[in-house]
């Protein structure tokens, strides 16, 4: 299936949970926040959240800023 992560298209084989995607991206879930189709996904649901064709994901973290 194709999904968009941070504005870029990606091909992923489903089924794929959000938790699995993060692992694949080697991102530590404690240090990111995720928006799925403009709704924030609570950290507790990363495992139970299945991704689907056309999903739009924003995966963010904290960086230096003023």
């Amino acid at each position: 299936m194709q999904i968009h992560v941070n504005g870029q298209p990606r091909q992923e084989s489903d089924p794929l949970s959000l938790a699995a995607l993060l692992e694949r991206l080697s991102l530590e879930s404690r240090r990111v926040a995720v928006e799925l189709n403009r709704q924030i996904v609570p950290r507790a649901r990363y495992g139970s959240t299945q991704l689907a064709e056309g999903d739009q994901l924003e995966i963010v973290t904290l960086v230096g800023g003023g």
Partner: protein
Amino acid sequence: MMAHDVLRIGDFEMASRLLVGTGKYATFELMREALAASGCQVVTVAVRRERLTDTSGRSILDFLDPAKYILLPNTAGCFNADDAIRTARLGRELLEGLGNRGSAWVKLEVLGDKKTLLPDPVGTLEALKVLKAEGFTVLCYTSDDPIMAMRLKEAGAAAVMPAGSPIGSGQGVLNPWSIRIILEQLKAGDESYPIIVDAGVGTASDVAIAMELGADGVLLNTGIAGAADPVRMAHAMRLATEAGYLARRAGRIPRKLYATASSPIEGVIGVKE
């Protein structure tokens, strides 16, 4: 010494009236050292997309001791209310994940223009109302327009943060008269309402001037991070914040065109008395 003089913003209390940004340091180590020299307790951070490739693996979080600093997430880079609202929510989610109490507040920036990075009054007001309704303690970055500052306070901003001059311009407080009007109007009958001068500070005297005008604190980033020696400048900024705060409360002498002798004018030798 100033324990009774802590700065309160919403439920947050801080002994240091200098808030410092974490952007633009050459290295995380240098940032950590500069923050320590500044004596600040609140540091701002930005929310950005994870780089999905070649991540250095190093995170700013490894250099900000949560026991020492309260993180204040900002919505920098957002040019409309919607992006700012989404960014604020993501910041809260991130800080909750870290168990950091900074999840309760946000520094709201809705910028109007990429060249000046000055705030968009209308968009800021719109985003403020939504975030306030969602329970955020909102600190509003704004221009030095006194009416806009009042509208933001009326709409529930926990603190108003007028710009002394454009972000990173190093021009200090370009219009002290506007800042004075903001302070007088927003603090009328509400002395403890917090006004933080945010942005534009270039050197120590700029901070002292802002505090002498009566600001409750100063937020800066580039003035330290961009200095040739950020750690030394951070130290200077810390001292200037205290100096300006004390001078304000010490009651300065009035300005006069002419002189007043500091030594006695009588008893000089050679005079027939």
